[in-house]
């Protein structure tokens, strides 16, 4: 694990025009940026393309980066803006396709592998739950989904999420409630089914 001071030293060298230092920054941060983008845009190819574009943009904006901010936060903020632009450009229909068909299929497969002893009925219900979740994630506004990804999957603090998404920490809290409310509304019927069941 690299210390923050190592990263900052690399940033300073990159700002001074040191190409290998910038390459090291890409190596260090590409995977987290890609992972965040994958969860936000829902497919591997777009996530890779956007991650590359993130670093291209970062390189151009290096001069404006100030060491008083965290570099990982700064780079994720660029990635976040690119993801929002991407959603806007590609439209809702494509997002629905990407999440529903790719991620849900993977999640279902993993769920089935994890519980091979589950009955076909249970598996079907679980599959339905996963599909419902993916549909609910599709419907979330991109900003809500980004906040949810940063909080739930990446375990980031409100302040950090606020810095990445460019809103107040209080807004992050509200957006998380809103995102969960939407997901709960869609998944609520499954909870009722369980209650009705044996």
């Amino acid at each position, binding site marked *: 694990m690299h210390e923050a001071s190592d990263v900052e030293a690399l940033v300073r060298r990159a700002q001074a025009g040191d*190409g290998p230092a910038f*390459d090291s920054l*890409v*190596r260090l941060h*590409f*995977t987290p940026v890609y*992972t965040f983008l994958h*969860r936000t845009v829902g497919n*591997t*190819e777009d996530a*890779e*393309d*956007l*991650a*590359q*574009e993130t*670093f*291209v943009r970062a*390189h151009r904006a290096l001069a404006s980066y100030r060491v008083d901010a965290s570099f990982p936060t700064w780079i994720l903020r660029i990635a976040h803006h*690119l993801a*929002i632009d991407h*959603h806007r*450009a*590609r*439209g*809702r229909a*494509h997002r629905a396709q990407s999440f529903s068909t790719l*991620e849900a299929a993977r*999640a279902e497969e*993993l*769920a089935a592998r*994890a519980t091979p002893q589950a009955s076909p009925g249970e598996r079907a219900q679980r599959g339905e*739950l*996963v599909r419902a*979740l993916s549909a609910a994630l599709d*419907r979330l*506004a*991109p*900003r*809500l989904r980004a906040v*949810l990804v940063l*909080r*739930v*999957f990446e*375990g980031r603090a409100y302040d950090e999420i606020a810095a990445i998404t*460019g*809103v*107040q920490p209080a*807004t992050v809290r*509200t*957006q998380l409630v809103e995102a*969960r409310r939407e*997901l*709960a*509304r869609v*998944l*609520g019927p499954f*909870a*009722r089914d*369980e209650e009705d069941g044996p």
Partner: protein
Amino acid sequence: MNCRSARSALYEAADLGPRADGGLATDARLELDAHLVGCADCRTLERALAQVEAALARWPAPPVDHLDLDEQVARVRAALEHAADAQPAVRAPRRPLQLARWVPWLAAAAGILAAWALFGRGPTRVSDGAPTAPPLVEGGPGGGAVEPEPRPAPGRADTHAEPDALPERDAPVELASTPDATSAPTPLTEAELARQAAAREQLARELKSVWSQHGTSGDEQLAAALTQATRELEREGWPVARLCETLLDGADPELARAALRWLGLHGDRTALPALERALAVAALRAEAVAALVDLGAPAAERIVQACTDGELEPLFVARLAAAQDAASAQVLERLARRALRPHATRETELERGERLAQAGRLLDALGRAGPRGAESLVRLADERLLTGAELAEELHAAQGSRALLARLIGERPRGASASVLIPAVERVRPDGALAWLTRQLQGERELREAALAALVRWNEAESLAAVLAAEGAGRASRDASIAALESALADAPAAVATLVAERSRARDRAALQVLVETLPLRAHGPATPALIELAACELVLRAERRECLLLAGEVGLPEHAEALAALYPGLPHGERELRAACLAALHRLGGSAALRQLFARNAAGAERALERLCALLEAPGARENPTSTLLRVAQELESSGLRVAP
């Protein structure tokens, strides 16, 4: 603990639960548990949130094994070096391969290859170049001569004897001795036989010439040339159709092809047996198919029968789709209807798969068959052989479907007929579609829900207004309104801004309430104009207007500063906090320059007041504590006397 605080605690617990910093404090947890015992609604929410967290926990991590960091570095490096001003690498969506659409063409290509294989090495039956013997062609049911068939104009009159009455090819029959022969069977004289042979020779020359010039031209050109070539013989009264039939067995395949096409264009039902025989000859198959399709309605039954042959079906389907006429569309419709219905009560999976694949090809063909094909698709959907979604898919690219759908919805279909049209109307968007969909909200539940779903996805101010009005009239849920707004915010945020302005002018409090509850939580950059419109609306509560302004400053883009600057002079002087919020948002989007521009007409001395204003807005912690910041800004505005001419 009441429900409100319980729900708040539940969301907090959901957020903190799986995290290392622990869940709720013990006291809060106990209090919540006590409330949950007696509140079914909150228990439901608790279970739903637990489902959410469990489902999220099962969500797979993105695949990273394939990532080669050196390669990624190299790509970034290459992008930096070679495209310094490159745009985001967003590719156009890939179009899925539609194999069904290619099948007929592949089959046609296979047919052409087969023909090449046959003739590319030279004719299989070598002609000695001498005129062949007078053809042995029938005269009538009794073997006598038939009346000549002068048909100067192409026609498909179905007034002749049934083809079953015709003798087989090897029957000893004679051609009419002269053009004006009567129906009485008369033995041909040598002179008559010679004249007949000369006419046949002339026809062969003409057809051969046409084929060499126009054989590979388009259908229209070929048809015109064929018609012109035989005009003289027809004028003389020669039965050109019969003569053409005598050329089909000749040694010259090009001549046979030309004769087949002539029979298709100018023949009638009596030509069917000859065309069917040609269908069995691989080298003539493509022209026989074209001729049968050209023949139209009289050949319909034979084509339907022939299409049970897996090799012939693609050839016919491609040709029928290309014909673009009513008769061809009807044949395709019959074939599609047959393919869409199970052939047997106990169909195997394989049979079913093949049948549905064939149906897919036929529906594709109908989609390409012009307006008549589109009409056929609608009929099939009306018979419930196609779903609304399938109809929409086929009509989406079909020629003439916009006009057809506009006419159909103009005829005010009801019930199930209307339901099945909705997806196509949504996809194709014919004239009058939005008004028609809105009218369907008055219909029965199934129809209403389908129309509502279409309106939710329509993403125009008018459709949004229709959904909100439906909610107000109890014909749609709040969820539908939220979904419509979300969809429009993502794909057409300008429509939301227009909607807010329109509903504000119409003083539609119910719609504005939905907008106030929905917009701020889903706001992103492009939604800023809608937020500003909402902030401008006097019917909205002051606190909510203030919230919209602050949010506009937070999510807005620099280009939205102008709209905020335009809003400011219209805000009443008494609304100090709103004015302060507007300035704060403007400052956030456009910086101090935007404020200077706004107050540019103030007298000298305003500069220092502006500096104080900017200092307040830029002070550390100003954004984190908007209420106190706005209070100070309002006070500064009051004391400085900064004004903007309305």
